[in-house]
């Protein structure tokens, strides 16, 4: 088990290195373009040459990459051209804001989708099952950028219950969090619920559930002791991988509701060619995704005795 964790961790580091190399090559292989992006299109050639010299851009590529990576590891991401300050000063608070959004989303998605999924999968083909299945297909079919305006139209325009933006200029506000979370939940819960349902339905048709029933166990015991244990292994992984999707979702939601989060920052940086900010945001996003994936793998192995003890 320990060896497995170490191997997964090594793969994770390797993935991150390859990702960083890709990013570096994509964004910084052409140093003149970097200079233009940093100094702006109206800078003179002379200014650019000086800047490149001062910032070590005339060193060979591998050296530059090594230095870049080294700075990255210690959290020195460079200076943002758009915000005119250290990238990390902007990045970390924004990431924390997104963390709040994500946590609130998961706090709703996990219990809701697991409950609905298990209920649907328990009796495959029942009316409840079919309603839950169709409902989850419908909600996953409405992408965030469509559900945000739709929900805003309902709750802001027609009902007037909720604020239409979530800028939180006057400090943190739970009310402003409701719509963004609702949009994310709507899109994400369906997928997890469907996966849980499929897993549960699969388990319910296995021979060992038949054994448990024909052993004369009460139905409750069959479900709680025999079925859930096996049926929730797959959704666990799905939920962990959902972090990856959520990171895409927050970009849209934060953009739409003007929420000051990480996703909006990444988008803003991209639209403004804020090269160091892009690099930092992308690396952080990939790191979060890869880390959860690794955790998902390790957790899956731990939950599954067939792998754990072999």
């Amino acid at each position, binding site marked *: 088990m320990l060896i497995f964790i170490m191997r997964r961790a090594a793969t994770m580091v390797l993935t991150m290195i390859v990702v960083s190399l890709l990013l570096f090559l994509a964004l910084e292989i052409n140093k003149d373009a970097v200079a233009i992006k940093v100094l702006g299109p109206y800078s003179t050639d002379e200014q650019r040459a000086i800047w490149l010299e001062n910032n070590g851009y005339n060193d060979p590529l591998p050296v530059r990459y090594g230095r870049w990576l080294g700075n990255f590891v210690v959290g020195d991401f460079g200076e943002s051209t758009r915000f005119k300050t250290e990238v990390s000063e902007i990045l970390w608070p924004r990431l924390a804001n997104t963390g709040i959004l994500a946590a609130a989303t998961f706090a709703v998605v996990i219990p809701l989708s697991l409950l609905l999924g298990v209920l649907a999968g328990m009796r495959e083909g029942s009316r409840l099952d079919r309603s839950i299945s169709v409902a989850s297909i419908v909600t996953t079919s409405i992408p965030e950028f469509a559900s945000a305006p739709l929900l805003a139209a309902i709750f802001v325009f027609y009902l007037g219950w909720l604020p239409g933006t979530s800028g939180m200029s006057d400090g943190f506000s739970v009310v402003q969090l409701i719509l963004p979370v609702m949009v994310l939940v709507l899109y994400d819960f369906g997928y997890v619920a469907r996966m849980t349902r499929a897993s549960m339905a699969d388990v319910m048709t296995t021979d060992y559930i038949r*054994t448990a029933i024909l052993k004369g166990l009460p139905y409750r015991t069959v479900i709680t002791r025999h079925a859930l244990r096996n049926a929730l292994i797959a959704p666990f992984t799905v939920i962990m991988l959902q972090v990856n999707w959520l990171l895409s979702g927050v970009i849209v939601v934060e953009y739409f509701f003007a929420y000051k989060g990480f996703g909006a920052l990444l988008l803003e940086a991209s639209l403004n060619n804020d090269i160091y900010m892009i690099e930092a945001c992308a690396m952080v996003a990939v790191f979060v995704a890869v880390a959860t994936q690794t955790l998902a793998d390790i957790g899956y192995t731990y939950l599954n005795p067939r792998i754990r003890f072999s």
Partner: protein
Amino acid sequence: MAKPTEAYDGPILECEGLCISYFTRAGEIPAVIDFNLTLPQGESVGLVGESGCGKSTVAMAIMQYLGSNGGIVGGTIRYKGQDLSKLGPEELRRLRGNEIAMVYQEPMASLNPSIPVGRQLIEVPLHHEQGVDEKEAYRRAVQMLTDVKLPDPERVMQSFPHQISGGQQQRVVIAMALLSKPSLLLLDEPTTALDVTVEAGIVELIGEIAGCFNTSMIYISHNLGLILETCDRINVMYSGQVVEEGRVGEVFDRMRHPYTQGLFGCIPLPGADKTAHPLVPIRGQLPLPHERPPGCLFGPRCDFFQGGRCDGRPVHMTPLDDDPDHRVRCLRWSEIDWEAHKPKGVSAEPLAPGEEVLNVSNMRKYYEITDNSILAMIQGKRVRYVKANEQISFSARESEIVAIVGESGCGKSTFAKVMMGLETATEGAVVFQGTDVAKKSVQRRSAKEIGAMQMVFQNPFDTLNPSHTVGSQLARVIRKFGVETDPEKVRNRVMELLDLVKLPRDFAQRRPRQLSGGQKQRIGIARAFAGNPSMVVADEPVSALDVSVAAAVTGLLMDIQRSYRTTLLFISHDLSLVRYLADRVVVMYLGHIVEQGTTDEVFAPPYHPYTEALLSAVPIADTSIEKKRIILEGPLPSVIDPPKGCPFNTRCPRKLGTICETEAPPVIEAERGHKIACHIPLSELQAVEPVIVQVEKNSKPAAE
């Protein structure tokens, strides 16, 4: 134990006119029709029949567990006089696992993979008996594991199902069933998924259950031999109906239904011989449930069918005049003269073997596996070998059938892969028609070489590509081997091949999913013979087929082999079949050849101890046979870490001592060509009694 109906002394189970149907989109499909059964206390009854005959459905109906689309549409099931269909869910729950328990076909699938075995056992007393605490339940579970002869029950209790072997898993399932001391035990093909030597142990255990626990049993199997070994009574089922029932000995000796007769004709018994007493397949195939014929369901396949009579009204069970306990569902049973009925099977003169075609000498195949564990790295043993084949030496001649026999993991499939060039040998030579192909992978063989050696595969369900028509798959082979290239001639050749395997020519346009298992296997044979091969490797070609179909396919394969004078390497685990068809036998265990010789030599003393155990493990459906019981202890060792010395030493009942654990056994040549790899002196091996003895009984002439 205080069970409410303890004083009951009537029959445990009565089924009366039971009819069960499944409801599908196509409508109601009857699965079981008019099933009657009375099971007295302590008796065991066998349900036997081919797949789809409804035998498992009966078991599930008794359990009242038919799924959402199945239902009892007529008749009653009474357990200790109580109508099961009238029970509420809670009463039913208390009955299941407590009064009626069940053992299933796939032990691995029947146990919950993520709960330790002990926990799964403890549940039974905890949920069925008042006042039993965890400790008491645990004690009983351990006791029961000891009773089913599991070594180290404490360890098994802590294990997860995947950590114990298949045989042990099945013992756990049996222990689980017996924990509540049920009055009725249902066994649904409990040994089908197990190897034959493991099966023997389970069968022995099942035989003891009835005595020890006073449990009545219903034993479901497709194997007549197993029923003979375990049951008092037998019900033969065909297409949802019982066609014959009675005491086991009575039915086996005086079968009166043509289907029962046909079934026995399909299985190779020790007396059977491919030239003198060939197998007699039943013609036609099992009718689909919604296409059953009127009247006698077996009518269309029956040799004694009388139009206007057998296809009229449904046939009822009638008792035999001289034995009311023996009943048969046939209108003509009293008219048929069985003595005069000598069905013509596939028979022919024995062939004289020709030139040597294949010579394998000292062939080894090791697979490398890399072990990435830290322990292995420290010990410097990162690369380990799976010794799949070790020192394989034998030869085969033209038109000879050489059988390779062994249980799973003995390396027979690896050997086939090396032969076909899908793997290359690690060492040694495989000389085929004068060229060494041991290290010649299939890509490097010429079309002619490839065409000269072809293979028939095991699983009819994926031997053919479901995406292409039968004709196009055969045509591809013909073109590939350069037999014909002209489209017209290729088409003719496809038709010839279909004729050869006795299938209608319009099958060329069909897709595999429109074919039955036996038909697919016939196409598989046609494909193997498309390039006029001089040798065909058949890897368990009939093991997945029902007995009546298997007999027909076996007959066909031998027929073609004869007419082409092909060498046939027949890989099988079924000793009865091997004895029936093979000229020479090679017995393998853990990648080693332990014994080889002509069929007669291998099946008579002197035996290798493994051959002896293997022979004794084979269930034989003949009341006139007596055999020695040799039950092998312990599980099959792993090929990654095989035992030192003799590979069989861990399970050998005749183990001499340390010499077996340290030194590889010498190969003794009992007679020319009959080789046994064993430390035991030949004289001692020769003194061993034969395993299978045909005793004189009912004035039947002894064949051996």
